[in-house]
């Protein structure tokens, strides 16, 4: 039995009720539906806003983070007044402001193998709005094991991808990407950036697919991968097929329960900069400042991209972007002490690995990157 709509709800959803493909019955289906949104960031923002406005009756939000200044360029569900607040609470307040007739359930915790099945089992649809490979594989596997659709969206700079992975009717994420890339090979948005409207485009497509699945209308993106490029304004599709060797949805699955996804991917289940290498390979910003002041014979290598020099710089540093480092090793002297740095320490950690692999030993990573330098040593430089 679908729930009834009040007069106030009928007025609220009048533009839906006028569409024959939705109508009163469709709106009641939306009210009866439940959707779990994993991540209330760039993708989760438009997804949650539109699902709330459309009248999806029960929406779950999973996130463990607080609203940060650098989120506001794209995470439009949060505002300046919400800085420092829990993201799930900031998002819930905004959604209930848009539509007090829905229920929003918040899970202020990371989505992990320990809680994922418990959280997801009560929802009809899972929407993957996460920012890292471990949680993407987890989101996929939970959906496959519970027999639910997983609406996928992913973004980088100007490129976006979207699909509906429903292993009962088509391929899953693992059919397309059986294994994650090695740690550090694929840049994250925290390192490489993202155009603020891009998650708006891709997240809105994810919300659209959720509404279509609930209403049972149209052609869902099952078995198709949408590739969007904002610069070309191109929408292209490729066909995805079920992989007969898929480790979770193939005929002979090896993965029959959730695994340790951080170990599987070799990276943490978040897109926060760790900023350090550990094992004695790091140098603190203040220590570096003291070494430079004492006139140490120290070479400073900035492995950021050239355009980042316009934001901040450390006097005397030489620029060798990470992508060029391997080809420019001959410019470096392994007998000389070196410190490598980037924005916050992740790219320079990879630079350090590369240098150590090439036989360099007198090299350190500036912990926390030039942002730590700006906070602790040179406040004339901005943090970004």
């Amino acid at each position: 039995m679908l729930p009834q709509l009040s007069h106030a709800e009928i007025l609220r959803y009048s533009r839906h009720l006028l569409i024959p493909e939705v109508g009163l019955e469709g709106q009641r289906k939306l009210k009866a539906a439940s959707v779990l949104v994993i991540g209330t960031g760039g993708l989760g923002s438009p997804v949650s806003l539109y699902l709330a406005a459309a009248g999806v009756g029960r929406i779950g939000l999973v996130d463990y983070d607080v609203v940060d200044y650098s989120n506001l360029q794209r995470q439009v569900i949060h505002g300046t007044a919400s800085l420092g607040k829990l993201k799930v609470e900031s998002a819930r307040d905004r959604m209930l402001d848009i539509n007090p007739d829905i229920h929003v359930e918040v899970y202020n915790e990371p989505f992990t193998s320990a809680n994922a099945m418990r959280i997801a089992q009560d929802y009809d649809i899972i929407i993957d709005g996460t920012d890292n490979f471990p949680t993407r594989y987890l989101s996929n596997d939970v959906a496959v094991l519970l027999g639910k659709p997983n609406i996928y969206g992913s973004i980088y700079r100007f490129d976006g991808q979207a699909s509906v992975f429903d292993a009962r009717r088509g391929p899953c994420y693992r059919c397309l990407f059986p294994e994650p890339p090695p740690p550090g090979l694929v840049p994250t948005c925290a390192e490489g950036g993202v155009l603020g409207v891009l998650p708006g485009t891709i997240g809105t497509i994810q919300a659209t697919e959720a509404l279509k699945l609930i209403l049972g209308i149209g052609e869902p993106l099952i078995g198709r991968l949408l590739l969007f490029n904002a610069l070309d304004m191109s929408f292209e599709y490729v066909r995805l097929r079920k992989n007969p060797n898929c480790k979770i949805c193939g005929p002979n699955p090896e993965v029959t329960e959730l695994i340790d996804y951080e170990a599987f991917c070799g990276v943490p289940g978040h897109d926060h900069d760790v900023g350090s290498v550990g094992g004695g390979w790091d140098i603190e910003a203040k220590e570096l400042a003291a070494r430079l002041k004492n006139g140490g014979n120290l070479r400073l290598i900035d492995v950021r991209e050239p355009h980042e020099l316009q934001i901040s710089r450390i006097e005397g540093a030489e620029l060798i972007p990470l992508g060029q480092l391997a080809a420019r090793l001959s410019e470096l002297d392994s007998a000389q002490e070196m410190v490598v740095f980037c924005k916050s320490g992740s790219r320079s950690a990879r630079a350090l690995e590369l240098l150590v692999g090439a036989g360099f030993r007198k090299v350190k990573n500036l912990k926390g990157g030039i942002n730590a330098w700006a906070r602790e040593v040179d406040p004339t430089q901005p943090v970004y």
Partner: protein
Amino acid sequence: MPTLRIPAALRSYTGGQSEIPIAGDTVSAALNNLVKRYPELIPHLVNEDGELRPYVNVFLGSENIREIQGLDTPLREEDRLMIIPSIAGGR
């Protein structure tokens, strides 16, 4: 000549180029010509044995070459290849 679409995540290795005409009568030949021109792409596309890495997908038109003849898939002049990488961003 066949063309190859480079995704944003790999364009820093192709001097920013997004659509590259690349000679070759098979996918393998075209990719070989590509990495000759842009050697920094090699670790992102193939492993030490020259096989496509499992997190990289190459599509010919709308079909995954793994479901055609893999790297031996023949190419025609007017064909368009697309590299589709794993990206994880979402926040």
